[in-house]
């Protein structure tokens, strides 16, 4: 099984180019598509309908969508062992997180109109393939300058230009996917560590104040040490972290997690 992650800022053209890639691959491979987002997306439905391949949406809600992606990857792999290629589209909100994995192929869809590439973090610098989109909107001179700049921040990437509207470039990426190595075990490794979640704001604090944030952080940390971090969903929340935030916000009783009760 090959595991392919498409990351790129919202609206950069991820789904558009994925569609043309699926068209290239669907006759020869068993595919699965997963779209991660914060609150809502229709990408999975569009793809399932148009290409008749299984697709799901995964909504992160209160969690950082990229951290959530990392949490969900093992489940996706477990449930799709019969597939040849898993295509995952991230929410693309964080230039720092971008959950590429060592064992799979990381593709950054980079909108050429989105400014200087040197400001991007791992979403670009750790990508195996950089697919520059929307080149049809700007001059050839700027396209060349942009390409040279991308090469500077990520010299090892394969760079191609794609057009989500016409499907240009999809063939090249389909080739890169075919050439990429299959995932051997269920245990995947992130290409880089994600930013730490270490403050009261991570636990839902809204009052901008150091003391308040610290208080919230300590309360959160305590709860965190009580839950078993199983993300089992028995509390009614899809992850322990969301449950902890709800408890701290007074929206949930901590007894809702059966594991906490036992330990008291």
């Amino acid at each position: 099984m090959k595991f392919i992650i498409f990351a790129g800022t919202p609206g950069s053209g991820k789904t558009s180019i994925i569609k043309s890639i699926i068209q290239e691959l669907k006759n020869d491979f068993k595919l699965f598509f997963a779209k991660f987002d914060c609150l809502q997306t229709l990408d999975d439905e569009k793809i399932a309908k148009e290409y008749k391949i299984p697709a799901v949406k995964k909504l992160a809600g209160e969690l950082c969508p990229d951290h959530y992606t990392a949490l969900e990857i093992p489940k996706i792999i477990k449930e799709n062992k019969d597939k040849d290629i898993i295509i995952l589209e991230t929410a693309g909100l964080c230039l720092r997180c971008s959950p590429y994995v060592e064992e799979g192929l990381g593709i950054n869809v980079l909108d050429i109109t989105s400014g200087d590439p040197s400001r991007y973090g791992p979403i670009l610098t750790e990508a195996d393939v950089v697919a520059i989109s929307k080149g049809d909107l700007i001059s050839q001179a700027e396209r060349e300058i942009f390409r040279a700049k991308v090469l500077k921040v990520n010299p090892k990437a394969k760079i191609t230009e794609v057009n989500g509207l016409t499907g240009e470039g999809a063939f090249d990426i389909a080739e890169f996917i075919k050439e990429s190595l299959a995932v051997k075990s269920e245990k995947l490794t992130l290409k880089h560590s994600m930013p730490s979640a270490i403050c009261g704001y991570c636990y839902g604090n809204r009052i901008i104040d150091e003391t308040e944030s610290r208080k919230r952080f300590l309360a959160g940390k305590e709860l965190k040490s009580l839950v078993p971090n199983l993300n089992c969903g028995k509390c009614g929340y899809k992850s322990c972290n969301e449950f902890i935030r709800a408890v701290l916000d007074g929206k949930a009783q901590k007894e809702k997690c059966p594991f906490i009760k036992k330990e008291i």
Partner: protein
Amino acid sequence: MNKEITKITILPGINKLGEKENFKKIDIKKGEVVAIVGHTGAGKSQLLYDIERLAQKDTKSKRKILVNDEIPDKELRFNPKRKLIASLAQSMNFFTDMAVGDFLKLHLESRGKKSKKGLIEEVIKEANKITGEAISSKMNLLNLSGGQSRALMVSDVANISVSPIVLIDEIENAGIKKEEAIKILVEEGKIILIVTHDPSLALNTDKRIIIKNGGIVDVLNTSLKEKGIAHYLNWIESFGLDIREKIRKGKKIENVEIYCEPIKSKK
């Protein structure tokens, strides 16, 4: 492959209906200017794209492009530093917030070249031959008009993105002196392909490829008669452009002198 490019060859693929294109091969030699014509949506830009990426049955059209009678190697196709092809696309919007002169310098550098003294000024000077509204090196790119942007890009392709093959997608759409533009681009014995709806441009070429339903259906050599007609058309248009400039400058157009310079037919 550092050899000089003397020729490219288009080998047939399929049209939008999946039917094989009905020709053996089309050769385009160094120094030739070829028009690509057909209705909107017929697939003209696809042909440019096939040539731009030196397609090997790996695009929608399944065409194959040879360079000097050979299949070009991968290095030539994908390494951006080995630019074989310059293209002037339909869209000419700039996004970079920068002065014209600085931008041209940056483009030179991204091509791995040092700026020669006077080159930037030369690029701007050539651009100003094509547009009625003068560009200066201090102007901000974002403030250029459509015509100025196009003129600058034409001159950029001729002087900075120097490549043996030039692809042009509908140059006529921006109120520039297109005849001058073509003159600047054609100069040095390159291979030039122009997608166009413009009759005088289409007839000002060596041959024209006709596209229908995504497939090449015919290739016509431009006759001497057609070139003559192109000449007249050009003349009429430049006359219009001249009046346009006068109106823009606030002049009154009181009388219109029409004189027709007869074409000198050879032979």
